[in-house]
C-alpha cells in the first residue's frame, strides 16, 4: 500500500496534493499496490469525497477536535500510527510548507530517511528517485534505502491526471474514520491563533497574471507603475530578491528560491535580470513576458516574449493602451 497525505482547504483538496496523488497512483499501478489517503481536520470527509476517480482506495479521515488547529507533531504521530497498522511501502506528501514539515517529523519519529521535493521515482530495489536541489535549478538522482520510503513531491513537477470517469476506478474512496492516540507532547505545538492579512489582495500563488519587478524598477516609488498595470489586469505584484533585501517591498512578495513559487498563466517580468534563484520561483508560469533594457539578460533564455527598453516608459504605455482599448 502507498499512503498519501492529502491537504485540503475547508474540504477542497489542495492542488499540490492532487499532483502527489497522480504520482502515487502511477507508482501504485506499476507495482500493483493500492493507494490510501490520510486527511486531517474539519472538512476532511468532504475532501475525501472529492477524491473520486483519483485512484484512492481508502481515505483515513482524522477529525479529532484537538486537531482543529494545525499541529505538525500530532499529524506526524497519526501518520506513524497508520504506518504501524497499514504497513505502507511508501508514504508521501506534497512538498508544501506543511507537507515538508509533517514528513520531516515522520522521519524524525521513525528514524527513517526522507527524500524531499522528489520529481520522479522508479520503485524496486534499489529504490531510485530524482529530487530537486537548489529549488529545482539542479536535479539529483539518488537511491533511497529504507524499509518504508518517505517522500515529499516537488511542487508542479507532476501534472494532475484527469480523474477516471468510468467503471470501478471512478468510485470515491471508502472513508474510514481514524482516531489516533495522541499525547500532550504530540499536541504541544499547534497554531495558537491566526492573524488576517493586513491588506486583502490577489494571492501571488493563485493569481492568473503576475507583474514582477526587479532591480530595474529602481525605487520603491516606481512600483506604482507596476501596481497600476497589475490592477488593470487583475494581477498580483511580485518581486525579485534584490527588491526585498533593499527593503523596497515586503518579503511576502518575493518570488524565487527563498520566496514563493508561482504558476500563473502569464508572468510579466519587469527589470528582472533573471538569476537562477529567481527563475526557479517563476518557471511554472505558462508564459513569460520580459521587459528589460538588456536583450541579452538571462531572463531572455526563459522568456517567451520580450519588449526591449526602459520599463518606466513601457509599463505606463501598456497601461494607457489597456485603458484605451477597454474604455476604462
Amino acid at each position, binding site marked *: 500500500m502507498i499512503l498519501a497525505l492529502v491537504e485540503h482547504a475547508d474540504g477542497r483538496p489542495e492542488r499540490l496534493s492532487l499532483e502527489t496523488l497522480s504520482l502515487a497512483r502511477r507508482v501504485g499501478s506499476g507495482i500493483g499496490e493500492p493507494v490510501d489517503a490520510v486527511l486531517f481536520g474539519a472538512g476532511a470527509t468532504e475532501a475525501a469525497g472529492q477524491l473520486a476517480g483519483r485512484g484512492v482506495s481508502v481515505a483515513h479521515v482524522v477529525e479529532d477536535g484537538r486537531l482543529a488547529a494545525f499541529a505538525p507533531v500530532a499529524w506526524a504521530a497519526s501518520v506513524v500510527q497508520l504506518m504501524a497498522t497499514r504497513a505502507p511501502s511508501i508514504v508521501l506528501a506534497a512538498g508544501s510548507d506543511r507537507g515538508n514539515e509533517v514528513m520531516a517529523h515522520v522521519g524524525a519519529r521513525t528514524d527513517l530517511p526522507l527524500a524531499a521535493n522528489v520529481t520522479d521515482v522508479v520503485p524496486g530495489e534499489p529504490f531510485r528517485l530524482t529530487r530537486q536541489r537548489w529549488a529545482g535549478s539542479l536535479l539529483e538522482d539518488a537511491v533511497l534505502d529504507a524499509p518504508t520510503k518517505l517522500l515529499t513531491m516537488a511542487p508542479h513537477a507532476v501534472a494532475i491526471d484527469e480523474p477516471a470517469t468510468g467503471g470501478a476506478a471512478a468510485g470515491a474512496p471508502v472513508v474510514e474514520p481514524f482516531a489516533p492516540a495522541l499525547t500532550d507532547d504530540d499536541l504541544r505545538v499547534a497554531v495558537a491563533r491566526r492573524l488576517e492579512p493586513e491588506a486583502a489582495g490577489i494571492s501571488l500563488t493563485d493569481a492568473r497574471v503576475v507583474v514582477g519587478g526587479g532591480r530595474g524598477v529602481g525605487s520603491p516609488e516606481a512600483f506604482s507603475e507596476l501596481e497600476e498595470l497589475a490592477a488593470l489586469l487583475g494581477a498580483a505584484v511580485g518581486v525579485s530578491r534584490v527588491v526585498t533585501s533593499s527593503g523596497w517591498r515586503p518579503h511576502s512578495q518575493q518570488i524565487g528560491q*527563498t520566496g514563493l513559487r508561482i504558476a500563473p498563466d502569464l508572468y510579466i517580468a519587469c527589470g528582472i535580470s533573471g538569476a537562477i534563484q529567481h527563475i526557479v520561483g517563476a518557471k511554472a508560469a505558462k508564459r513569460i513576458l520580459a521587459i528589460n533594457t538588456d536583450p541579452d539578460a538571462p531572463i531572455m533564455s526563459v522568456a517567451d516574449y520580450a519588449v526591449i527598453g526602459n520599463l518606466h516608459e513601457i509599463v505606463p504605455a501598456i497601461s494607457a493602451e489597456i485603458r484605451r482599448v477597454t474604455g476604462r
Partner: protein
Amino acid sequence: MNILVCVKRVPATGGRITLTADGRDIDTRYLGFTVSPHEECAVEEAVRIVEKHGGSSTVLTLGPEVAGEQLRDAMAIGIERAVLLETDGADWDPLATAAAIVDAVKELEAEGETFDLLLFGNEAADTGDFQVGIRVATALGRPSVTGIKAIDIADGQVVVRRDAAGGGWEVFELDLPAVLAVKEGLNLPRYPSVPGRLRAKKKEIVRMTPQPRAGGPTKERLRLPEGNESTVEVIGQGAAAAPAVVELLTRLGVLGR
C-alpha cells in the same frame, strides 16, 4: 537568552550552474561560498535577540575546514563564538548531519552551556532537505516550528509567526528551550563592519570531529533540468510596443473585459 545558530557553507551560484566532469558535484572552481539567505537571517536574528535580551550567541556548522570562513562571516556581524564539526568535505545526509549536531549540543551543554534557542535555516540552499532542524529538535525533545518569519521572546516563551496559506499569519507559542527553522524575510541582515571582520578573524573556533551514521537518500549523480530554455520572441522596442503587448494579452486571454 543563549542561542545556537546552525549554518551550511554552499557555493554562491548566481548565473548558471556548471557540474564537474563526473556529474557528481557542482564545479566550484570559479565560485565563492556563502550560506543560504534563510541562514543569514537566522544569524542576524540571534545577534538582535542577544542585543535586546542579553545572553550569548554561538554559530555552528558541519563541513570542511574552509567552512570556518562562514563561521567568521557570522562572527563579523556579532555572533560571539563558533563551533566547527569538521568533515572531509563529503556530503552528509540529513540524518547524519542532525545526529552530529545533536551530539555537539549535548557535549556543549554537558560542559555547562545551555541553549534556549536553536536556529536553523528553513532548508539548505543546495540540498533543500527541509528536515535537519526538526530531526535535531525531536532527538533533543524540544518543540520546533518551521518557516518562521517573526520571533518574539517573553516570559520563558517564544511567540513566532509564519505565513499562512492564503495570506495572513499562523502564530505559535512555544516553551523554551525550542528549535526554530526560519525563513528569509525574518529581518534585513546587516553588513559586517571592518572592525567586526578584524575581530572575527582573531577569534578561536571550537573544533569537533563527528562520525557519520547511515541515513539517506544517497546521491548517485547531479544533472541540469531539461526543457527550461525557450525561444524568445521580441515583440517590440520601447513604449511603441504597447499596442503589440495589449494584442498579446488579448490573445493569451488575460485581458479582462
